[in-house]
């Protein structure tokens, strides 16, 4: 889950990472008042959960209170990458001497957090990583020790030079790590981390992503969820423990396992069809999950066939079959279903489907081919 800059900055401020003073505003009026309180010049920053706000015109400077009001009015009317801007952060501007980059993320390769830093901050850091990998400092963090002052010292000194600035950045890095672990974060990022004219190191931006698997431990964070930023069908799926991504095609897919779901989509494409979605019913599925999955997929009027591909391990084919039968009864399924059930309790599952007149394919390849043919107007 992503949270807004202003929310992340509140978390930063709580643990003592310096951030510019700022106020959240939902209307141009509120923005003017915020500018008044802070004293211009101020920055007016769109609060949306996508990257590249700056390029899209979502960050503007205002030299006066009335200018702040005008800029806020402009930004609050925008849509950035499809997301409406519902609030802006009005912030005191800083005297920027230099811009750096600092983040902590999980490194799959070492299975541990990694501190990333760069003296090239305030720019597209993915671009820097791709084109100038040597400009990125990578400090592996041993979770047994955490990020202690010595851990990041050498890298940060290379970035900042001056020992006093290094000491400030080391302190910030340590707090950033605490935040990362304490909040079960998957990414904490400061871009840019700035050095001000007065020699203070400060977070000018703030990004905090949270691990969905751990949100139940942090109800105060879960409350920060911005529903605007999520596709309503994806939200519905998540609420029902399904992993769903909407796509453009005609073949609705219900698969167990993310890998098999992706492989199924790949094979649909290779066979000349177009998947309407990615949908993983997960392991240990209860029959109701299939019912929910059918409901979500059938909400898409483009869907012309449903491809159910199940290879049962912890998932039992009979559970799946029961769910499918319940869906046919309760939802009145308007499109053909191509089912393939293999694995745990497959005999029981196939027998159940047969009892309502549904045949199952033997292999994944066969099921995919059939589904593509049906979508093209053929028959199952």
């Amino acid at each position, binding site marked *: 889950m992503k949270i807004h800059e202003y929310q992340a900055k509140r978390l930063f401020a709580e643990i003592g990472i310096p951030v510019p003073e700022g106020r959240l505003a939902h209307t141009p009026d509120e923005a003017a008042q915020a500018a008044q309180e802070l004293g211009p010049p101020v920055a007016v920053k769109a609060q949306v959960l996508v*990257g590249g706000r700056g390029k899209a015109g979502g960050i503007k400077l205002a030299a006066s209170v009335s200018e702040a009001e005008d800029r806020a009015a402009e930004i609050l009317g925008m849509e950035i990458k499809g997301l409406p801007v519902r609030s802006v952060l009005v912030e005191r501007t800083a005297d920027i001497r230099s811009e750096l980059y600092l*983040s902590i*993320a*999980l490194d*799959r*390769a070492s*299975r*541990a*957090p*990694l501190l*990333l830093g760069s003296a090239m901050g305030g720019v597209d850091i*993915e671009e820097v*990583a*791709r084109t100038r990998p040597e400009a*990125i400092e*990578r400090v592996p963090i*041993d*979770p*047994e020790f955490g990020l202690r002052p010595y851990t990041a010292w050498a890298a940060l000194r290379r970035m900042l030079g001056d020992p006093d600035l290094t000491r400030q950045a080391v302190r910030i890095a340590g707090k950033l790590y605490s935040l*990362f*672990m304490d909040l*079960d*974060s*998957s*990414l904490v990022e400061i871009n840019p981390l700035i050095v001000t004219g007065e020699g203070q190191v400060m977070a000018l931006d703030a990004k905090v*992503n949270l*691990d969905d*698997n*751990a949100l139940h*431990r942090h109800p105060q964070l879960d409350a920060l969820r911005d529903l605007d930023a999520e596709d309503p069908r994806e939200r519905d799926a998540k609420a029902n423990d399904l992993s769903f*991504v909407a*796509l453009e095609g005609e073949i609705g897919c219900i*698969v*167990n*396992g*993310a*890998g*098999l779901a*992706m*492989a199924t*989509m*790949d094979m649909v*494409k*290779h066979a000349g069809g177009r*998947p309407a979605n*990615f949908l993983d019913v*997960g*392991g*240990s599925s209860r029959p109701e999950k299939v019912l929910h999955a059918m409901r979500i997929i059938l909400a898409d009027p483009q869907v012309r066939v449903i491809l159910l591909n*199940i*290879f*049962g*391990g*912890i998932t039992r084919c009979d559970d799946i079959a029961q769910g499918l039968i319940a869906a046919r009864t309760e939802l009145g399924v308007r499109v053909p279903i191509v089912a393939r059930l*293999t*694995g*745990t309790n497959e005999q029981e599952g196939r027998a159940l489907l047969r009892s309502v007149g549904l045949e199952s394919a033997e*292999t*994944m*390849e066969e099921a995919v081919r059939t589904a593509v043919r049906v979508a093209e107007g053929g028959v199952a």
Partner: protein
Amino acid sequence: MAILVNKDTKVCVQGITGRDGSFHSHRMAEYGTHIVGGTRPGKGGAEHEGFPVFDTVAEAKAAGANSSVIYVPVAGAVDAMYESIEASMDLIVCVTEGIPANDMVRVVASLRGRASRLVGPNCPGVITPGVASVGIIPGRIAIPGRVGIVSRSGTLTYEVIHALTRLGIGQSTCVGIGGDQVPGMSFLDVLELFRDDPDTDLVVLIGEIGGSDEQIAARYIAQELGKPAVAFVAGQTAPPGKRMGHAGAIISGGEGTAAEKIAAFQAAGVPVGESPGQVAELVRARLRLPEGSGTA
């Protein structure tokens, strides 16, 4: 001898009285796996559907268990892993999904200097066909043989096993390491075991988009494995950015796309199949088996 699971594997089922734990205990036992019993604090001393129940893993260990498999709900799964690590179980398979990544960071760190190997979480487990199964891989689809499988995916693994079996090509051991960001054993850890296993002639690696584990594995296969390998990568048609985050892109300097991974395998001389069936065909070709015959 295979890897991780063999005829001396004696299993403690953590969460044996739960729906999944109970169901799969029977499946594993039917397959011939030696199930010592399971744990459920407070029920120690009782029986569950014929299996002895213990309060703790340490007690199951005292009764002979040397491996454990975890089916407990996510709220208790981290403690369950720690319990088996503290009890020095040789193999720990965690089937449970939905464990926070930073919890796994701590669990993996705690393995340092200890004897346990952890497979998972969010994984189907390990099967040595014809010998024993620890986890949830359906035993019926596998046959004994000399092809090792390691996979980040659950059900996709079954497809590949199934496809191999249909061609009569048997497996030495199949290891599903799970798709989570922080797995106990990585591709690399399992490849090292396969390298040293005289019963494995070829390794099938099943990857997916995200991260750079496949690229790292490809390098290892080229330089160290000393055996042929065949790969599969799921997610060629996945929309960009859906699984691979911004952070990963900075760390690896790449996007973690299927195309990058396939290119890495090809550069390492590892053929990549486009479907489970095609993977099986590539294995047959690589092993220079005549069509219609396997190693089983």
